[in-house]
């Protein structure tokens, strides 16, 4: 009986040791800011040891190691961080997969062309770091919230990604275009039949392409200084010619979107972005009344 008790105690000790080992958070380096945000919500399961910059001028706060530019991360800093898992974007980082996995590190590349894909990626990441329950629940809540926000009548919208001197339409093949479609907006730019380039969801806006567009609302997204890009776009549509149709149909409703929420995919912040979009569309709804 005594021997049985000793064995049971030893077993219990072993079990608690194994449980403690299993509960140790996974050391993650992420090349996607929204993955960092999601993993910060499950600190018992994952520790973000290295991350890329959201704004190239703003270093990543310590103690997380700064990997620099998401398009060209620092492999030295990555090696220094000693992650167990590196999470990147399939479209952006596939060609670096071998380099990212140097030293036997596991590399997880997720597909994120739309809202559903982003949520699927979050579920996969949750399953990998042992936080499936938490992230599944967060995703389910986010999906419910988006459904609650759907607008009554379709609103023709032009989503513009702006860089100095250039404008691109964001089609339904981008996360923002997909979110707008889910919320009941009607994107005035169709995805091209044969998409080209590294970002197939972005269609360059040229004189010929814009002549027939009649959005009631224009949304401007930019990585830095969206207000400046918005003003540049307003000047462009005020210049007349093929761009004047956009000015007439939108009634000058050109909104710059908050770069913290819209410059890159916000992941679990998508419902917050959805609320901002619906809120921003109110002037259109009121104008219709």
């Amino acid at each position, binding site marked *: 009986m005594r021997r049985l008790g000793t064995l049971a105690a030893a077993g219990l000790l072993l079990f608690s040791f194994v449980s403690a080992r299993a509960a140790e958070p996974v050391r993650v380096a992420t090349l996607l800011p929204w993955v960092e945000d999601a993993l910060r919500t499950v600190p018992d399961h994952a520790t973000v040891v290295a991350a890329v*910059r959201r704004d190239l001028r703003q270093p990543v706060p310590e103690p997380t190691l700064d990997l620099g*530019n998401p*398009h060209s991360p*620092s492999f030295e800093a990555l*090696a220094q961080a000693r992650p167990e898992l590196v999470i990147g974007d399939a479209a952006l980082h596939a060609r670096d997969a071998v380099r990212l996995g140097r030293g036997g590190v596991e590399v997880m590349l997720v597909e994120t062309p739309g809202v559903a894909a982003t949520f699927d990626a979050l579920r996969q990441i949750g399953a990998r770091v042992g936080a499936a329950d938490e992230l599944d629940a967060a995703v389910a809540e986010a999906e419910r919230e988006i459904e609650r926000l759907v607008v009554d009548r379709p609103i023709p919208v032009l989503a513009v990604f702006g860089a100095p001197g250039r404008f691109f339409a964001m089609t339904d093949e981008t996360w923002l275009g997909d979110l707008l479609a889910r919320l009941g907006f009607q994107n005035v730019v169709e995805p091209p039949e044969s998409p*080209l*380039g590294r970002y197939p969801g972005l269609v360059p806006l040229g004189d010929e392409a814009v002549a027939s567009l009649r959005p009631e609302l224009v949304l401007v997204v930019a990585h830095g200084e969206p207000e400046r890009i918005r003003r540049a776009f307003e000047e462009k549509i005020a210049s007349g010619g093929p761009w004047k149709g956009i000015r007439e149909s939108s009634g000058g409703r050109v909104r710059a979107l908050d770069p913290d929420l819209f410059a890159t995919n916000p992941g679990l912040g998508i419902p917050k972005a959805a609320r901002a979009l619906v809120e921003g569309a109110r002037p259109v709804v009121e104008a219709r009344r």
Partner: protein
Amino acid sequence: MKRWVARLRIQLQRLRDHPRWSASLLLALLVVSFFVSVGSGAVEVGPLDIPRALLQEEHPDHTVVADVRMPRVAAGAAVGAALAVAGVLLQTVVRNPLADPGILGVSAGAGLAAVATLIFAPDRAAWVPFFAFLGALTTVGLLLALSWSRGATLSALRLVLSGVAVQAIFIAAMALLTFAFAERAPAFAAFLVGSLNGLGWQDFALLAPPTLIGLAAAQAAARPLDVMLLDDATAGGLGMSVKPARLAASSLSALLAAAAVSVAGLVGFVGLVVPNAVRVISGPEHSRLLVRAALGGASLVLLADTVARTLIAPLELPVGAILALIGGPTFLGILWKKLP
């Protein structure tokens, strides 16, 4: 100022008179560049700590030094040596100090072939240097054909302008390919400027054999290269078959440039700056010039890459951008002297 220049000239003449001094100086520069390059970056590693970090797996900086920095430094040195010697060979073939694989479009020819191979035969990465070599060789042939008017000598102006035009065409073709096949092509901007970011031992393994073959063959051909510097009639009178010799030297230059481009993209100006700088301390004799150019090229690329990855760390600048800042003014300086 005049006094200072006169003193400098005397010192340079001394270096030319004592070839071992210039070789030792460049070797010392390479050793310093190596330690600075391996020791600097996201993690600072002292020179005495480098061997331990490299050899002891339990050392905290082992992964950074052994798996990330060393292959990059090795590849960078090989790229520099290859491009510098490719520049020497090309300058000898066309008897013009303005010749450089980057400026004349030879690197762009190699780059176009490399990009096309990566796109259309993505599972044949090991073949990239070979096809890059074919691309570079074709470009050299094209340039020589465009720059040599019938029966006349080679025109420097025609050569440089032909190179500029050929380069523009090849870069446009690369841009179109990378746009149309974005998911398989290398990152265009980094490839176009030239970057060593992320290079590993597998890249060095691709680069090392053609570089070693090219460097050894060039050194073995030092004498014929000296003869090639004379005009065609004199060279022929000394028993040289000028056209085959020129073709062989061009092929070696193409091989070296292609090897570098295959892993680092269109790194420019090394083949211009280094041979012209090294000639000042070693003279034009190829048996001396080639070795010193290889050492100087390796040092220049290592130092430029160290600046590129530490200046605004952890963000990295492409090494080609730093080299262009040095090479551009050098090119203008030589052009200013050469052209009427």
